[in-house]
């Protein structure tokens, strides 16, 4: 596997996705129940998670996973709670932007902010407890940096 090829693909696609998340969050400021924007943030976070996990960028995978889970709960609620939750989602976006920029600069992804992870997960403990783990041996990244 050509790590440089996949890293370039990741940087290009993740940057595009973060731009889409940014636009969607701005539209959610105007319409907190926009299904299209909620779905888009969920989908983009999910995609970033899968790509980052494949490359062993654990911090990015962890943060985007928490953002995805949060958006799943937002979907269930039908709207983003104005104020605090919107601000939290923007913080998640900004943190991901910084982490992807770090990959572009250094080739390494920094660890995710533990406090931000906790805040994104808040309220989701019960839902997480209900989830079962898939029986798989595919849980390790395909591409690990040497």
């Amino acid at each position, binding site marked *: 596997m050509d790590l440089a090829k*996949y890293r370039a693909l990741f940087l290009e696609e993740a940057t595009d996705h973060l731009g889409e998340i940014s636009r969607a969050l701005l539209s959610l400021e105007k319409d907190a129940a926009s299904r299209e924007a909620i779905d888009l943030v969920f989908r983009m976070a999910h995609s970033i998670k899968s*790509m980052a996990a494949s490359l062993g960028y654990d911090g990015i995978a962890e943060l985007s996973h928490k953002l995805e889970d949060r958006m799943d709960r937002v979907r269930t609620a039908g709207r983003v709670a104005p104020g605090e939750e919107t601000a939290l989602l923007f913080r998640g976006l900004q943190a991901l932007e910084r982490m992807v920029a770090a990959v572009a600069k250094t080739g390494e992804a920094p660890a995710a902010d533990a406090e931000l992870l906790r805040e994104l997960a808040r309220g989701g403990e019960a839902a997480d407890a209900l*989830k079962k783990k898939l029986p*798989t041996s*595919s849980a390790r*990244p*395909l591409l690990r940096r040497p």
Partner: protein
Amino acid sequence: MKGRVLVADDAAFMRQMIRDILEAEGLEVVGEAVDGVEAVEAFERLHPDLVTMDIVMPRCSGIDAVKRILSLDPGARVVMCSALGQETLVMEAVQAGAKDFIVKPFKPESVSATLKKVLEKAE
């Protein structure tokens, strides 16, 4: 391993990764689709031996696409590409007729073994 495969995933990164794994195994990627609608259209046009189908995609989800493909061809072989945390969706896809699933991040030997099993069952 021989076979013609359609790859459906909205992320170019994941499509490329699956393509590399499949081609290393001697499989031919005959088409790519970026959403569920394209996947159904490409299936009708290309008649692949197997489809790898992402679950979370725009316009039409992978699960809806599986249902549409199986309504067109009840013998179609679709393998779902899932991520940890999508257990319920995977179960729904399998109940809808998907033959198996592979989990992201992909492990080439695991992907190959799953696809080989599904293709051999078809023969």
